[in-house]
């Protein structure tokens, strides 16, 4: 059932701010929880193709694995977890923006 286990989101950094962004149905958002999730290789290809259509809003687009908790995407790799939060030595970045 490998195809069902697949879950990917498209992520990038914002051209002006540089901060981490996620793609969802034609718009780029700051919050991973609201990102659009691809569940099959075909959906992943399509997601990446659509996400790459914003070269003047994004800097580099890539697909990353996520885990779904009650349908909500969460980071799998620790690097992606840091990208959703910010640095660990100061309360800066996304963790502060959410307050």
């Amino acid at each position: 059932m490998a195809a069902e286990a697949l879950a990917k989101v498209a992520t990038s950094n914002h051209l002006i701010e540089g901060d981490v962004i996620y793609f969802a149905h034609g718009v780029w958002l700051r919050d991973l929880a609201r990102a659009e999730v691809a569940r099959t290789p075909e959906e992943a290809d399509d997601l990446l193709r659509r996400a790459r259509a914003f070269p003047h809003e994004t800097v580099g687009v890539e697909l990353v694995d996520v885990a779904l908790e009650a349908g909500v995407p969460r980071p799998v790799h620790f690097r992606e977890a840091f990208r959703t939060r910010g640095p660990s030595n100061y309360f800066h970045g996304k963790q502060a923006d959410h307050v």
Partner: protein
Amino acid sequence: MYKYTEFDSAFVRARIAEFRSQVERRIEGGLTEDEFKPLRLMNGLYLQLHAYMLRVAIPYGTLNSAQMRQLAMIAERWDKGYGHFTTRQNIQFNWPKLADVPDILEALADVEMHAIQTSGNCIRNVTADHFAGAVAGEVEDPRLTAELIRQWSTDHPEFAYLPRKFKVAVIGSDADRAVLRFHDIGLQVVREGGEIGYRVVIGGGLGRTPMIGKVVREFLPKRDLLAYLEAILRTYNMSGRRDNKYKARIKILVHETGLEVLKDRIEAHFEAQKRVLPDVNPAVRARIAEGFVAPALSERPAAALSMSPALRAFVDTNVTAHRDANHVIVTVSTKGIGTTPGDVSAAQMRVLADLAERYSHDELRISHEQNVILPHVHRDDLPAVHAALLAADLATANIGLISDIIACPGMDYCALATARSIPIAQQIGEAFADLDAQHDIGPLKIKISGCINACGHHHVGHIGILGLDRAGVENYQLTLGGDGTQEATLGTRTGPGFSYSEIVPAVERLIEAYLDLRQSREESFLDAYRRVGIAPFKAALYEDRDAKAA
């Protein structure tokens, strides 16, 4: 320090105007990221994990108070109120926005600073001994050479598209405080029969394949420096590998070609360059020399100091002898207990600027060990300097001790990192928070890198820590016995790595083992390691752990 000529200013302003138009074209859609990326990198602008990062050069690590205050202003106006001093005498701002960067570069130009060639496959910011011009035993101030090389290498038409980045360091005495033998080119100013020249080392480096540089010329007359550098760079540019980014540094060329063969090629190019390259314009040399005239030090004899215990501890570790007996060199630690190595807040920058202006002939230095130096302080001023540092949380008396750790930004900021470095440094600092215990442990250099590129110099730490990603989990490898000084030694790996939660206890076991086996308090960790070898340390690392697991 060196004052910009009209040419320097015009050049830097022209580069900013060019970059401003490139940023505008990128934002408006006239440039793609593929086209823009090499242009922003040429101007020191990276995209990191959470934001852009601007790397600003501090040539040969020298700053004046006006420059430090401007860095504080930039940190507050366009960043989050702090800057990060790096192992290459640069300062990095972690949170600039793309549209603001041209304005930041203008603010830097206002105080004669820039971010040119702080990235890319070119000749990078030239580094030098951070005690240059202040310490005894120098043949000559290495910054005279470093500034000449800065000018020669800036926008050099031949060497902007090298196989890989290229780093040069310069020292002026036998004591190596600039990690000379781990640079692509290391220059030591030497004197031979009354003539000043250079001992030239090439092919050193850390990273994936660490190598100790080799002497390619025992004595190079001073006037031949640029022709010889052009010969080395031309040899490298023509023959360095371009098929594999991990084999593209000059150290690999030296290793694969052999020093003697390469030396012949360099000498052949050198003979050709000597014929065609004119001498350096004496007016340029004179202008540089004016910039590094030794400050007029007070001749007032130093009075005997009555020192508080805190000041005494500070003097023991953070104060180094000056070439003038009435003066000292003060090293200000950025490694307070639990702080981030290399990070200095805007308020602290202003305190340092004030102290430099009042007590150190308006000079500051940034060391590759990520500390800040007041190079010319009169002994009588030590209590006042110490008190001001204390009030600014900058008086930690730990230079050269276990908590004076080098750490790269690691995965808290860096897009290339494979693991975090900063929290490991913070936790080691906290584990050994007791300064008396640190003094008891004695001289010890811990260096931490968050990936194989080794910005944290882990190979030359007495204890080196390398953070890796092992199957999606942070894992830390240890190396022991490294040394970045004139004794140049690469550390030896101990064995399997440790998890994020295991690495600090592992370091604690190394220290316990050292304290058990040292012959006296005078035998440092490195000396003890050299005497007994790695075995007892491996036993402490792995047998104890295995015993506990059993």
